[in-house]
């Protein structure tokens, strides 16, 4: 009885909280709409003020604002540093997301079609019918596939996520997931996927247990051995076997950089893909002659619902679907940046309101000297923008340090997708810096508008009293 009563009370309380939260969310949406309006108004006012400052109209001398910032340098520095932190964080977070996007965008070749088992959205969960090849695809698609003499540009691949065990120095084991791809014709697979080898490496012969490593995973294994990267001649343990490294792929900035490639039969026998019925493959990648016809060819394969239906899509589409995690991180990064920006905006508002209250007499004198309300507004708005820009530029510079840093993450398609763990490089490009400076301007404009409006509304005589 006590339990039921407690459950009922909890239920009523949770129901009440849920309603309260819905009301708060409703109010927040209203507030957000107002904030959006304010942002637009602030940006317009800032744009007008900047334009006005650049044109040869009478205005409050720019030197006046610079001198004031110099005189109140402590406040200026503190506010600018807050901006620097916010913008640097945004740039760092966007660099990470950009690195992930670049990875998924670089992985797909425009003319490639990836064929999976019917219903599968990820090669990790795909199991193709035994003996899959080009001749089992629809007739019109067969004619579209690129050929070298009689040889189709098509490769069968078995993809497994291997659980790698690494003994720890103090005893025990550490585990890591490693993506392994077994291919039936490695050189053709490399051509189809646009992969090249680094100097000194060779494609495996297939006679012994050999692997070719992506540049990212080679660095990861290298760190285990206390060196920058493993290379040809080194040996690694994956699953129940030791594998000899035949070569390392050139950095292509794609997800293949995080994979280990081996001969298909070796992967199949090591990881339970060899059955009495035949060897199982995860995907079948074909290159069509005309990259623009790839989507059409994939549609033909997908729509052919005969004895052996397949799922098919262009490789670029497949990898762009893996950007679900990227979108998630992008949204998270933007939310963090916006919330931090609100803190920055409130900080600059404090600074500007204080500046205005300290300089009320200045404003009164300027008004008596003939400066208009609009000129006062634009002067203070520009001052707030200067603080923001100092902080923003420093923030972008600080955030740019992350360019080229290595990080690990997972890319996945979300719904039912398996995901791939990847080694990526952070990318700070013009777009990321533009986003950083954009946030800077928005923060400066929004934070400066309300104080500048209050400065504009000061009456000359009252402010001189």
């Amino acid at each position, binding site marked *: 009885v006590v339990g039921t009563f407690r459950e009922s009370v909890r239920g009523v309380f949770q129901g009440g909280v849920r309603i309260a939260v819905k009301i708060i969310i409703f109010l927040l949406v209203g507030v957000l709409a107002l904030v959006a309006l304010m942002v637009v108004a602030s940006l317009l006012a800032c744009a007008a003020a900047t334009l006005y400052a650049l044109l040869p109209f009478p205005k409050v001398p720019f030197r006046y604002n610079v001198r004031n910032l110099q005189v109140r340098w402590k406040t200026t520095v503190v506010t600018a540093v807050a901006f620097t932190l916010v913008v640097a964080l945004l740039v760092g977070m966007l660099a990470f997301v950009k690195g992930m996007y670049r990875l998924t965008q670089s992985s797909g070749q425009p003319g490639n079609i990836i064929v999976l088992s019917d*219903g599968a959205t990820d090669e990790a969960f795909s199991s193709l019918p035994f003996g899959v090849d080009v001749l089992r695809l629809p007739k019109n698609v067969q004619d579209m596939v690129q050929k070298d003499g009689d040889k189709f540009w098509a490769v069968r691949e078995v993809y497994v996520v291997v659980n790698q065990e690494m003994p720890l120095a103090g005893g025990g084991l550490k585990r890591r997931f490693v993506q392994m791809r077994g291919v039936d014709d490695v050189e053709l697979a490399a051509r189809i996927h646009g992969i090249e080898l680094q100097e000194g490496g060779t494609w495996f012969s297939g006679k012994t247990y050999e692997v070719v490593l992506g540049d990212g995973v080679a660095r990861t294994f290298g760190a285990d051995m206390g060196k920058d990267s493993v290379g040809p001649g080194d040996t690694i343990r994956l699953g129940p076997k030791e594998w000899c490294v035949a070569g390392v792929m050139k950095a292509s900035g794609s997800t293949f950089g995080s994979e280990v490639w081996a001969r298909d039969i070796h992967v199949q026998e090591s990881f339970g893909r060899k059955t009495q019925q035949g060897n199982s493959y995860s995907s079948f990648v074909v290159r069509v002659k005309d990259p623009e016809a790839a989507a059409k060819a994939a549609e033909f394969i997908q729509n052919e619902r005969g004895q052996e239906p397949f799922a098919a899509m262009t490789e670029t589409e497949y990898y762009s679907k893996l950007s679900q995690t990227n979108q998630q991180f992008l949204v998270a990064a933007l939310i963090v940046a916006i919330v931090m920006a609100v803190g920055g905006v409130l*900080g600059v508002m404090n600074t500007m309101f204080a500046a205005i209250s300290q300089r009320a007499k200045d404003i009164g004198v300027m008004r008596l000297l003939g400066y208009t309300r609009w000129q006062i507004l634009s002067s203070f708005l520009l001052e707030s923008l200067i603080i923001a820009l100092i902080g923003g530029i420093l923030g972008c510079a600080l955030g740019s340090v992350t360019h080229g840093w290595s990080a*690990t993450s997972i890319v996945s398609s979300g*719904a039912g997708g398996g995901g791939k763990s990847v080694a990526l490089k952070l990318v700070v490009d013009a777009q990321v810096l533009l986003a950083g400076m954009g946030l800077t301007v928005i923060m400066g404009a929004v934070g400066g508008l309300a104080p500048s409006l209050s400065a504009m509304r000061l009456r000359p005589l009252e402010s001189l009293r």
Partner: protein
Amino acid sequence: MSFLIQNLILNPLNLFGVIFGVVPIIIGLIVAASHPRLFMLVVKNLGRNRLRTALTFLAIVFLVFMVIIILTVVTTLDSFTTEKARNLKLIVTERWQLPSQMPLTHADYLDPSNPKFLLKGFGITPNDFMTWSFYGGTLEPGKVTLENLIFFFVMDPKHIRTMMDDLETFDPVLVKKMQETRQGCLVGRERLEAMNKRVGERFKVFSINYKEIDLEFEIVGVFPEGRYNKSAIMNDSYFNEELDKYARQRGKKHPLDMKRLNLIWLRVKDRPTFEKVAGAVESASQFADLPVKCETASSGVATFIEPFKDLLWAMKMVMVPAILISMALVVANAISISVRERQKEMAVLKVLGYRPTQILGLVLGESLLVGALAGLLASAFTYYAFNSMGGIPFPMLFFQSFPIPGGAFLWGMGMGVGTALVGSLLPAWSARSVKVSEVFSKVA
């Protein structure tokens, strides 16, 4: 006592909250009670420039809100990867690859109620065992969207209360109903809403991972609000019977027939027992054909989280400090402006007989009061707003959402008070050191 040790001393974040939040607040309350006039002066001073107070307050609220969200994600993941000392849950999976796919017979050797049970003498009872298979599909054939996609934990319903995390108090009536309804399933609230279904309704699932095994279900109940909002459970007996039926009807086994078991769960009393059990399982000849590995649930989760280690490090070591620093800067800025504006007032207070320590306390009191209230409000809002939705909606690996822990109140207060303290120390010291003669000579 053990609760206090567990939640305060062993949890550095909660301890931080107590040291920087609760202790200063208690000291502040004692000072306020013993010097009510000084406290009233603090309150009045805050009311003198309401705009500045409000802006500083709001800035702290927003930034504390953000830090609580980040810390919740990080600490939740940490808690899943931290080894427990007692009642360890073990996962037995296929040794070399992911997803783990084992034959159903593997479970026989580890099921305490099965005569083939291998682990006699380790204190493992039938309540300490559970198996999982994963069955997923769509409500319409070939149409994969978030709305019509559903994944089931395939398991014996009798283990829901005994082995599933956070379902220890799950309604036993629903468990019984699941056991009695062969096609019964339990579905989380959010998944149910996304599918636009209600309890009692029936639906058919066209499988994605078990080709040609399309199953019909009847919804018998909903999970309690929280981590299972997007999950579903179905009967393992129904699943296994359908796979067996496939073999009988087609004259050949389903391609995944011998790979239908994904995970085996066991619970042992402590770490030494785990070591022994793991050794016995991994070396058992019964698993020689398809080797298995045995690991604690936390170490299993840690392997999945491994690729995010850089990101989590950056969240913990870069983002949180950066936000805290900008929060301290906002406070420092506001307080130093306020102190500069009130130099004459400080000098007058000194003339009236206020000691430098009292002036220091006055300025510190103002910022601490704002920091404490803002931290408390931010943590209360974050806690109730997100937990009413089942947690922070940030699907990541097998975590659908991250509920805000109760300790967030301590973190919020700790951050609010701590950053207010750090931010206002220098301005308060400069207020304390105001020289009366200098201030009045300037006025003169």
